[in-house]
């Protein structure tokens, strides 16, 4: 394709050349997409550790029910001999999931990596609406504030599960956290909804309108495709959750009865609306990760992505099917079982595009020249763990089998294989990969590998075991299964899982130390330390406000590694066909 010569029809960009701004405008209320991306990154990192700590407390209780928790037990429950209280346990479960989903995985993928990478990868100066972009970050803060405050109100934070099923979440006296904590939870969700909606509209406009000349849709890196489809999912599914949350708020505060059967409402209505959003949200939490992993694997295998078009088609198919499968969370909910059959068929169909993706990643590796960097190892872990997470999903998609594993630890294992084994490993991979671009320094590879190896082992120790106790029928969200004779036999496994979880938790401190240490002491990085093809590597490291010091033009797709046309093993997107490679872009 020839480079479009027409002048930019877009509205004049923001005053991108505002280089003399005060500290506040540059780092706090910045409109620069990179600064906003990093703001998202560090905010979510803090919440990652908060959510992780909650998870460790959950695990402690499961392994040694009602025993004294070390350190915190004495602080929080001194009068009761340091043992956790049952309502505190339900709160832990609820808030761990809420924080990890709404404050960590979604904002770190869409908010942090999305913001940082979209303009750089498509060759734009900034987002289409930089000020709006700033607001999309700052609308997270009321949500942060609500959730933080909810820990300190009477009754504690929400404890009706992250799914917030009514009537438990609506009736004020049904659960301790169904007081102000639940109201704050809902307000937080509404604010996250606004933030995500603003962000996703911005992403969509930017990706549609602001691609560099020559950057056709089918030359976009998979990361951008993942983020693009994610933004569509967010834009169309999130309003439904917002509407549902508004109704739950009015149920709680104004006295309506949408979800209360005694007032003529329907408890299942919330489940339908909630999962209409939250099932696509599952893909919101994995599609950007899939995109990033595709880019990273192709780069370190020094080989083009196997089947680019099928990969794009698979992402679109997953997203499209994602809208019509929400009912598979509700097979046991009392929904008409005949509808369950329909939802099952659609759900099982989703395994097909997921399988295509896995085959293509393997195809990319086969015949490559693999470089075992920390980023690559984490990306490979994503593939390996996503296989398990995807295959275990087939069990619960099958309605009949779901009868025995629904609401058991099998589900908990499955979802952690997708969300931790999938998304979080992709976040690690993305961090190691784009860190040089973000900060102009390299992360420490040795500690990166140590962190990877320990996380990988402890992760599997923790979550693979959950499938076993799930098969045994061990129910989830139960503070102690000691009331049941059937589940006593799993106690040693619970102890094992907790030990692994604690190990995994402390391993993340290595990551934090490596991240902050490398910020200060990391080796300086040049523009393209990984010899990658995509446009962000042609900008300075870190890129200035305005990103590029030349007009980026895309001449080819993003995956021309080891191309026979050039002698170097990479062929940057912006390198004109006639120029001699390797030196033009990376200097």
């Amino acid at each position, binding site marked *: 394709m020839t480079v*479009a010569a*027409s*002048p*930019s*029809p*877009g*509205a004049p*960009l923001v005053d*991108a*050349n505002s*280089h003399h*701004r005060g500290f506040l405008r*540059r780092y706090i209320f910045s409109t620069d997409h*990179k600064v906003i991306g990093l703001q998202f990154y560090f905010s979510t990192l803090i919440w990652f550790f908060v959510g992780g700590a909650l998870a460790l407390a959950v695990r402690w209780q499961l392994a040694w029910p009602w025993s004294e928790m070390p350190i915190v037990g004495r602080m929080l429950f001194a009068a009761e001999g340091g043992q956790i209280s049952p309502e505190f346990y339900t709160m832990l479960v609820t808030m761990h999931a809420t924080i990890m989903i709404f404050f960590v995985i979604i904002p770190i993928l869409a908010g942090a990596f999305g913001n940082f990478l979209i303009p750089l990868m498509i*060759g*734009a*100066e900034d987002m*289409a*609406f930089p000020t709006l972009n700033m607001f999309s970050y700052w609308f997270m803060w009321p949500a942060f504030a609500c959730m933080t405050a909810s820990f300190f109100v009477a009754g504690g934070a929400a404890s009706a599960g992250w799914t917030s099923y009514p009537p438990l979440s609506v009736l004020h006296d049904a659960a301790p956290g169904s007081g102000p904590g639940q109201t704050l939870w809902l307000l937080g969700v509404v604010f996250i909804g606004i933030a995500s*909606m603003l962000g996703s*509209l911005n992403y969509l*406009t930017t990706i*549609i*309108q*602001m*691609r*560099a*000349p*020559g*950057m*056709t849709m089918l030359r976009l890196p998979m990361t951008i495709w993942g983020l693009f489809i994610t933004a569509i999912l967010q*834009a*169309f*599914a999130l*309003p*439904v959750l*917002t*509407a549902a949350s*508004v*109704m739950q708020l*009015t149920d709680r505060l104004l*006295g*309506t*009865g*949408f979800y209360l059967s005694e*007032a*003529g*409402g329907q408890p299942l*209505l919330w489940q339908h609306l909630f999962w*209409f959003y939250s099932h696509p949200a599952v893909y919101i939490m994995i599609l950007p990760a899939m995109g990033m992993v595709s880019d990273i694997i192709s780069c370190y295998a020094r080989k083009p992505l196997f089947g680019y078009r099928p990969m794009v088609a698979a992402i679109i198919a997953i997203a499209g099917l994602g809208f019509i499968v929400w009912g598979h969370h509700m097979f046991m909910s009392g929904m008409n079982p005949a509808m369950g059959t329909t939802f099952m068929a659609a759900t099982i169909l989703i395994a097909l595009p997921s399988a295509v993706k896995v085959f293509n990643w393997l195809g990319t590796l086969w015949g490559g020249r693999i470089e075992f960097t920390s980023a690559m190892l984490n990306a490979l872990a994503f593939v390996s763990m996503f296989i398990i997470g995807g295959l275990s999903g087939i069990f619960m998609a099958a309605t009949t089998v779901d009868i025995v594993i629904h609401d058991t630890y099998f589900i908990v294992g499955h979802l952690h294989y997708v969300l931790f084994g999938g998304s979080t490993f992709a976040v690690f991979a993305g961090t190691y990969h784009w860190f040089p671009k973000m900060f102009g320094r390299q992360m420490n590879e040795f500690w990166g590998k140590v962190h990877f190896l320990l996380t990988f082992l402890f992760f599997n120790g923790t979550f693979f075991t959950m499938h076993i106790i799930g098969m045994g029928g061990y129910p989830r969200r139960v503070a102690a299964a000691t009331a049941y004779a059937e589940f006593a036999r799993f106690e040693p496994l619970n102890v094992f899982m907790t030990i692994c979880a604690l190990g995994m938790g402390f391993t993340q401190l290595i990551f934090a130390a490596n991240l902050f240490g490398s910020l200060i002491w990391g080796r300086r990085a040049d523009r393209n330390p990984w010899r990658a093809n995509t446009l962000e590597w042609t900008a*300075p490291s*870190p890129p*200035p*406000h*305005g*990103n*590029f*010091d*030349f*007009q980026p033009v895309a001449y080819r797709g993003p995956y021309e590694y080891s191309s026979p046309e050039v002698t170097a093993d990479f062929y940057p997107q912006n390198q004109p066909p006639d120029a001699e490679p390797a030196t033009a872009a990376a200097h």
Partner: protein
Amino acid sequence: MDSTASAESIQLRYQPAVPIRNGKLMLWLFLSTEVMFFAALIGTYIVLRFGAAAWPTPTDVHLSEPIGALNTFILICSSVTIVLALESARADSGGRAKAYLFVTLLLGAAFLGIKAYEYQVKFHHGLHVDRARRTIYDQADLEYASGLRAALRSVTADTNADAAALAAATALLEQANNPDADPSALALQAAEFSEVPEAADWRLPIVIPGGHMWTSTYFLLTGLHALHVAAGLLVFVCVLPLRLGTARAGLLENVGLYWHFVDIVWIFLFPLLYLF
């Protein structure tokens, strides 16, 4: 971050996929999210209404079709005037554009005023969503009799009340206290009693089958729509002081698109709530 380098950054060229302004594209995308938002709400209404055992007719709940129709008419007129405002702005006659926009603002405000009046009527008849203030019961059953007793007890405790009405209330209370009283008969008597002018303010409970769910959905749908109208008015107020020439036609077009959307939502709500 190295900010000095940004001085060297250049004006970039792009390859947009759709030939419209970014702002307009963004607005269309925004409206599609709004469509999903109202789709969820209207879907809820439909599910609850057709899942309900009983649903009140408009007269049961003091809903006036003519007033609703008038409001619809006002909103449609406002859509016309905002188009005229846009045309004027395109013709670069800022004054006329401003005038039309102002008329739109007035029409929108009139819509909200009429809505407020309608709410007032509902509240007066005890049609609240608030559990503490609403006086609706789904059926004349023992729970209703219990509510009636509570209301009558507070009425009879009120010493300032009119003597004749007080006597009637006391008699009714005595009847309600009879465990064998038929709640349906009680409900009829209470309804009659409420028609007595002195007793009209006493807010005795009334029986409206499906009334709780009706108030919930009615106030939710119209309330959130009214919030959107109010947001539109706020935008008008912000736009009015600007010079509405050709340069601002794009802005006015965006505002107009949003206003049309608000209008269309009402055109769905009106028949759903008032006519069916």
